[in-house]
Structure formats: C-alpha cells, structure tokens
C-alpha cells in the first residue's frame, strides 16, 4: 500500500516539474493551490456514493444470491429450473443495458401498474448491480455448498436436524470459508462496476472525474487520480478480507 502511495508521489513530483503546456499538468489537483484543493475535494467526495452504493449492492447481492442458490440444491426439479433460468438469464445481460432498462424502463412498467415511483439514480444503480451480481454470487454459493461432502448432510439428518438447521449449523459454517475468497472477488467487481452508475447521473467517483475533466480539460491527470482512487478502495477490501479469512481460519482450522 505504501509503495503504491510512493509511486503516486513520484508521478506527482515528476508531473509538477513540467509546464502546464507539457505532458503532465498536475496543477489541476495540486493541493497547495486553492483551485487544486477544491478539485481534489470534489473528486474525493465521490467516495461516499461509491462506497455506499457498493456496500448496499453487495449485501443485497449476497442475500439474493443465497435465495437463488438454495433451490439448486433441492431435489425438486421445478426449483432447480428456477435457479438455472435465473442464473443463465441474469448473467447474460450486460450491466449497461440492464442499468438503462432499470432506470428508464422500470418506471414505465411501475406506472402502468399504477405505482408512481420514480427510481432515482442511486437506487437504480443499486438494484441493477445487486441483481446482475446475484447470479454470480448464487453460483459461488452453489459451488461452496456442494463442495461439502454429502455425508455431512446425512449425518445431520440422522441426528434429527431439519433442512434449515442442517444449513445453519452444519453446512454453512464449513462452506463459508470456501465461499469467502470468491465472494470478496465479487465485491471488488461491484465496486468497479459501480462506475457505470455515472451514466445515469449518479454523483460517484467516475461521474465527478468526468465533470472536472469537462471544466478543466486535463483528462490524463484526473483519470490517473481516478484510477488510484479505485485502487485504494480495492486494496482496502483486500486487506479486510484477508483479516476476515485469518479470523475464520483460526476458528476452524479443522476442515478436513
């Protein structure tokens, strides 16, 4: 993390050497000038929306993913079919068209149903991200749960546990350790995909960067900063997940 910050500083100092007419013009985001500092504050202000958006969407996706994944493990063919159709359909839709559909299309449907609900950019983005990601989380859950041997379920049955208890006390605690790393991957994916929310006017990192680029016309510096902003977010998630994994790992090193 520190190395990356140092790298960033090198870029910065290198850039400030050159004139505004040269390759780099860091003055747009130079914290020592008043204008630069205002720009930085404006850009960094996007963190709030991006983080909030990602966290809510991730939680929703984790929840929807579980609801979609559990039917896949049942013996009922209809439930299995529901899982397959949902996963195949949702994961085949590119994020951007889906975002447009939810933001511009869904209100029309709601209106025809008599609900006069305006979907704002924030919730439109959350719904889109959560649903499109849930297809992937569902597959992660399925893989994790199915990797636990069938003997565990059978043993749980013979001591009288019902389906919910088996999942809650036997399968999930074991599956969680295997699910966590790919789930973290999905979370990182959500953070990055939240950039798409800028096209429907959501004031997050990318949108703010675009706005400054339009007024200052220094795309190189601002988009470089933008990349580093995402880098910081993703690194933070990575550290958090490492920590969680360690904590879980020490608790149940016994997974044989």
């Amino acid at each position, binding site marked *: 993390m520190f190395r990356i910050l140092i790298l960033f500083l090198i870029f910065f100092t290198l850039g400030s050497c050159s004139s505004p007419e040269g390759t780099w013009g860091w003055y747009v985001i130079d914290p020592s000038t008043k204008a630069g500092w205002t720009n930085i504050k404006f850009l960094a202000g996007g963190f709030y929306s991006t983080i909030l958006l990602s966290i809510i969407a991730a939680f929703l996706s984790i929840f929807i993913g579980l609801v979609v994944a559990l039917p896949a493990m049942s013996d009922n063919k209809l439930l299995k079919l529901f899982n397959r159709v949902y996963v195949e359909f949702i994961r085949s839709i590119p994020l951007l068209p889906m975002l447009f559909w939810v933001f511009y299309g869904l209100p029309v449907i709601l209106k025809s149903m008599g609900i006069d609900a305006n979907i704002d950019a924030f919730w439109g983005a959350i719904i889109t991200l959560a649903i499109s990601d849930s297809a992937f989380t569902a597959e992660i859950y399925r893989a994790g749960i199915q990797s636990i041997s069938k*003997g565990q379920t059978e043993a749980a049955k013979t*001591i*009288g*546990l019902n389906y919910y208890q088996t999942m809650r006390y036997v399968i999930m*605690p*074991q599956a969680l350790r295997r699910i966590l790393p790919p789930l973290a991957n999905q979370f990182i994916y959500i953070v990055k995909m939240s950039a798409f929310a800028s096209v429907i006017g959501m004031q997050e990192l990318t949108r703010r960067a675009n706005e400054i680029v339009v007024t200052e016309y220094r795309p190189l510096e601002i988009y470089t900063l933008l990349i580093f902003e995402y880098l910081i977010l993703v690194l933070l998630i990575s550290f958090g997940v490492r920590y969680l994994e360690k904590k879980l790992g020490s608790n149940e090193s016994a997974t044989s």
Partner: protein
Amino acid sequence: MQLRTRSCFKYCHAVKLKRAKRKISHRGGYKLENTFAVEIQGLTKSFKDFKALDTIDLNIKHGEKVVICGPSGSGKSTLIRCINGLEDFDEGKISISGNSQNPTKESFVSDFHIGMVFQQFNLFPHLSVIENLKLGPVKSLGLSEKDAETRARKLLERVKIPEQALKKPNQLSGGQQQRVAIARALCMEPKLMLFDEPTSALDPEMISEVLEVIVDLAREGMTMVVVTHEMGFAKKVADRIIFMDGGSIVEQNSPGMFFKKPQTARCKKFLKQILHH
C-alpha cells in the same frame, strides 16, 4: 458391570412390556411377538438399470442384533440406509416398531429414533467433540444446553474418551473419531442403531477399540443392525447373520450354524475368501 447390564436389560424389558400392553388395549389382542423393531416386506430398489435391492423380506425383533455381510455391491448399505430413510425405495414396505409409515426425510426424529454410524464417521469438522454430541439433542430434541452437556459427557465416558471433549475431530485418531460418532448417535437415545461398516475405514490397530464399544452396547440390549466384515465380532454379538448377494438375502442363520454349515455355494465361497487371507 454384570449387575448394571442386567438391571438395564430388565428396564428395557419392562418398557417393552408396557408398550405391548398399551398396544393390546389399543387394538385388542396384539401380541408381543408381533411388534418387530423393523419389518421389511418386498423391498425393491433400483439405481437406473442396476437392481440394488430385490424384494427383500426381513423382520428384526426388539433387542435383536443382526449382522449383514456380503460382497461389495450386494446391497447391504442400501438396505440399512432404506431403514432410516436416507435412501428412497421403489417398492415394498418398511415398518419401524409397528409403525407402517415409511421413515421418510421428515420423520427422522420419532418416538423410535434410529441412530446411525457411518463408515467415514461424518463428524462435523468445524465443531468440537462435545459440540458434535450436543447439536442433535439441543436442536432437534429441544434439550437445554446443560442437560445436553451432561448427557454428552456421560456418553463420552461410555465410549472411553472423556478427555477429548474439547478437541476438534481431526485431532483424534480414526478409532477415537468413530467412537465419537457412536456417542453422537447415542446422544439421541435411539431405540435402534445402524452401523454401516463402522470399522472399514480404520487402521487395523484401531478396530478393536471401536468394536469393544459396539459389543458393550449390544450387551446393554440395544437393537442393532451391523454391516461388517469382522467375522469374529459377528460371532460374538450377532443373534443372526445375514448374507446378501446381488441385492437379495441369500442366506440367514444363527452365527453358529452360519459359520459351521453355510447352505449355499455363494456363501461358502465368500466365507472362504474372507476367513482365509
């Protein structure tokens, strides 16, 4: 020990009588001999083209110890997995303790609970030994933590590993793990115990410690169905030995007769292979 065993037996007998009497008053003229622990009629099951069980008829009395042996793929495991409902079957009827309703997935916990011990132990690796034992009683029988703890401790003593209570299963030897698995099954206070090759996954020097526990259990009057190739064990505890091949019961007899005078050629061949190697 002798005294305890006997009093336990007496108690079991009393309970059985009581139950029989209740049945008499209920249905009128129901005899004790008629209440089998397990009653199987015409049990048939196929896996796609392969016939795993072919019209099996089998009655097991209360307190009877039945050992099932036979070559692999003969349907032994499938049979006992049908008894406790881990496996569905195509045709036939299974009654547990006169209760003709099939023990399907929903009725795993009944008055007449069936305990099961697996070849691969199937302990829960993320829980400690004592938590493995307590899980069933607390969650499905609704016992309090404290009662379950006492019960679990008692059973750990019975399988002779009280000092391992707080360890995780993979810190134990195979023999110890299987004994924990037996204790876990007993924690539900079953009336019938099924053993599915309980010693097949163990190192040779650990087999006897597990068999000892099962023998003790047999002496206390538990109804048991054991799938095993341990013929010495079968001789010692079995009331009846069943030889299965190709999904049907080929031969059944008391242990004495079974080993001395096997009736069928297939059984003779099997015994020859298993006893002289």
